[in-house]
């Protein structure tokens, strides 16, 4: 059970890194497009 709990926590951390990374990436793309087109 303890091992399972550790795996679950690790999976949650991977998920958090993925999802916030994705949001940052999208934000970064939008910023770069904004900088290029000078809106």
């Amino acid at each position, binding site marked *: 059970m303890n091992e399972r709990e550790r795996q679950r926590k690790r999976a949650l951390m991977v998920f958090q890194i993925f999802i916030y990374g994705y*949001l940052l990436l999208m934000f970064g793309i939008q910023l770069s497009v904004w900088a290029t087109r000078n809106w």
Partner: protein
Amino acid sequence: MNSATTDALLTPDAELEQSRLAQRRADKWLIVGTLLMGANVPGIFGFPIFLWGLALLRRAQKAGLSVRPIMVTLIGYLVILDAGLNLQGWILDMVANHSLIYRVLYTAWGNTFDAGYFWHYNQLWIGGAGAPGEKGWEVALILTVFPMRIAAAIAFLQMKRWGYQWLLVTCWFGVVIWIGYVMNMTVYADVRYAGVVFPVLGWWIYDIMYITPFLAIPYLHTVDREIFTD
């Protein structure tokens, strides 16, 4: 048993009754606060009312009564608020897009943050936002995940097992929504951000508040599910 002992020690039934009353009292404040916050403009009044409900709940917990855990309360009401605000905004864009108030409010909002609500507003056959993809998301989410989320959150607040399970399901739906919606937003960035007052930064500052499903997922996956009754 003499009266002195009955005063000092509550019977289990009496304690349950007191807990129920304390929970109900706190919930009244929490519900009113959430409804006001969910109605957009009076949100500023809803927040202190909500906090007062939380304080009442904390007080009851400290007094040893068996009330709902604070974390369950926060997540449950936050989900209702998040889904409610989204539902309200998008339903009005779907069906009330020709009313004077929404022609003013939505195009003003669009002009400030997101030209998806300004560019060709009310010019498609269905009315409302004209940004590519926006109506598809509106219909999909109004008809599926947001009502499901509100129903799940109500049962979650009642500490029911199905509420817990469905909240988990709909929080993962939230991840799908964010990945799809933000991608769509980014692909059509030149429609949505061109010519607005606060491009990019404005949208993120406003909309980052809707990431509550991400914040709830770690809690929901690690909480002891036995606290939710079958």
